[in-house]
C-alpha cells in the first residue's frame, strides 16, 4: 500500500504543488495528469526517493522510499530509457537485471524481447535502433517483472498503437496479480483491468 500525505514540491523558486495526498492499494493504478511543467515527473521522483519532498510524507507498507525494503519492491522506468547505446538489447536487459539483483536467464530475456517485438534484433547494438525500438528495449524489463510497485514516467511515448495496447495489457496483468502502479501520460489509454484512479496536478 502506497500512502502519500500532504506532499509539497518546490523546484528552484517555484512552488509546483502542495497538499497532494492519496492512498493506493493492491490492484490500483494511479494516473497522474497535468500540463507540461505541472510537476508530474517531480512527483514520481519523490515517490521513488530520488527527490526529497519539501513537506509531507511517503510510505510504502510503512517504509520510507529510501529504505532497502522499498527498493527491492520498486520497478522504475524513467523518461530516459536507461539503456546503453553500445550494448545489444539482450546485453542491456541482462546487465540491468544483474544490477537490480534479479535472476534472468538468457532464454527469458530473449523471450521478453520477442514479446516487445524485437525478435531478430537481440544482437544489434542499440544505437542502430529507432526511438520506438529503444523504448521497447526499456519496456522489455517489465515483461517478467514481479515487483509489486511500478512507477512509470511517460511509458507510452514513441510507441506505435499496437505497442500501446500491448503495454496497457501488461500493466493490466500486473494490477490483476495484486500489484500497484503509478504512471504519467498525455495519451488516452485504456487499461483493461484493475481500478484506475486519477490525480490532476496544477488545477
Amino acid at each position, binding site marked *: 500500500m502506497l500512502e502519500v500525505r500532504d506532499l509539497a514540491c518546490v523546484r528552484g523558486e517555484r512552488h509546483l504543488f502542495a497538499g497532494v495526498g492519496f492512498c493506493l492499494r493492491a490492484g490500483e493504478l494511479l494516473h497522474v495528469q497535468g500540463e507540461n511543467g505541472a510537476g508530474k515527473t517531480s512527483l514520481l521522483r519523490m515517490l*521513488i*526517493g*530520488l*527527490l*526529497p519532498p519539501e513537506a509531507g510524507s511517503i510510505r510504502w507498507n510503512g517504509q520510507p522510499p529510501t529504505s*532497502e525494503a522499498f*527498493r*527491492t519492491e*520498486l520497478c*522504475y522506468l*524513467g*523518461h*530516459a*530509457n*536507461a*539503456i*546503453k*547505446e*553500445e*550494448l545489444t538489447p539482450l*546485453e542491456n536487459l541482462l*546487465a*540491468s537485471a*544483474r*544490477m*537490480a*539483483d534479479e535472476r534472468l536467464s538468457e532464454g527469458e530475456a530473449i523471450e521478453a524481447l520477442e514479446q516487445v517485438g524485437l525478435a531478430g534484433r537481440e544482437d544489434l*547494438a542499440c544505437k542502430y535502433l529507432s526511438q520506438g525500438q529503444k523504448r521497447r528495449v526499456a519496456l522489455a524489463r517489465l515483461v517478467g517483472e514481479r515487483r509489486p510497485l511500478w512507477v512509470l514516467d511517460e511509458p507510452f511515448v514513441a510507441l506505435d498503437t499496437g505497442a500501446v495496447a500491448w503495454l496497457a495489457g501488461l500493466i493490466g496483468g500486473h494490477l490483476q496479480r495484486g500489484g500497484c502502479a503509478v504512471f504519467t501520460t498525455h495519451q488516452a489509454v485504456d487499461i483493461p483491468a484493475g481500478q484506475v484512479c486519477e490525480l490532476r496536478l496544477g488545477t
Partner: protein
Amino acid sequence: MLTIVLAVIARDLKLALRRRADIAAVLFFFVIVASLFPLGIGPEPNLLRKLAPGVLWVGALLASMLSLPRLFADDHKDGTLEQLALTPHPFGLVVLGKVIAHWLASGLPLALLAPVLGLQYDLSTEALAMLTATLLLGTPALSGIGAIGAALTLGVRGGGVLLSLLVLPLYIPVLIFGAGAVDATLSGLGADGHLSLLAALTCAALGFAPWAAAAALKIALE
C-alpha cells in the same frame, strides 16, 4: 554485496571494450607526453634519468584524468545512473565498481605501458620495475579521488576544466610518493617507506572516495 560491484565492473568493462578508441586515446596521450620530453631536452642520459620519475608520473596522472569527465556523465545522460541509485544496495558500492572499472581501463594499461616509455630515459631495469610497481599501486588512488571530482562536476557546464582544478591538487601526495619511490631506487636508497605510504593512500582513497562520490551523485540526481 559483492555481486553489485562485480555486475557494475562487468558492464563497464564491456562498454570500455566497445569504445576502444577511448582507451587508445588515453594511452596515446601518455606515449606522446612521455616522448616529447626526451625530444625537447636532448640526448643527455644523466639529465633524462633525473627527470624520468617525475615526468612519467605526471604523464600517467594527466592521462588517467582524461577519461574522468565521462565516468558518470554517460550514465547520467541515458538514465542508467538513476537505475543504479535505485538498487537495494548501498550506492557507494556501485561507485566502487565504477572506480575499479575505470582503473582497469586506464590505470592498469598505463602502468603496463610505462616501462616501455621509461626506456627512452635510460632507466635501469630496477628503476623500470619500481616505476611499474608504483603506478600499479598508485593509480587506483587516482581513480578513486578522481571519482569525487567527477561526481561533484556532474552536469556542470565546462565541468572538465573544473574537474582538473578540483582533482589535481588532491593528486599531489600520490605523485610525490610515487615519483619519490622511483627516485629513491635510482639513487640506491630503499623505496619501502614511499611504497607503504602509497599503499596507504590507495587504501584510504578506495575506502572513502566511493562514499563521498556517492553522496555528491545523489545531490546531482535531485
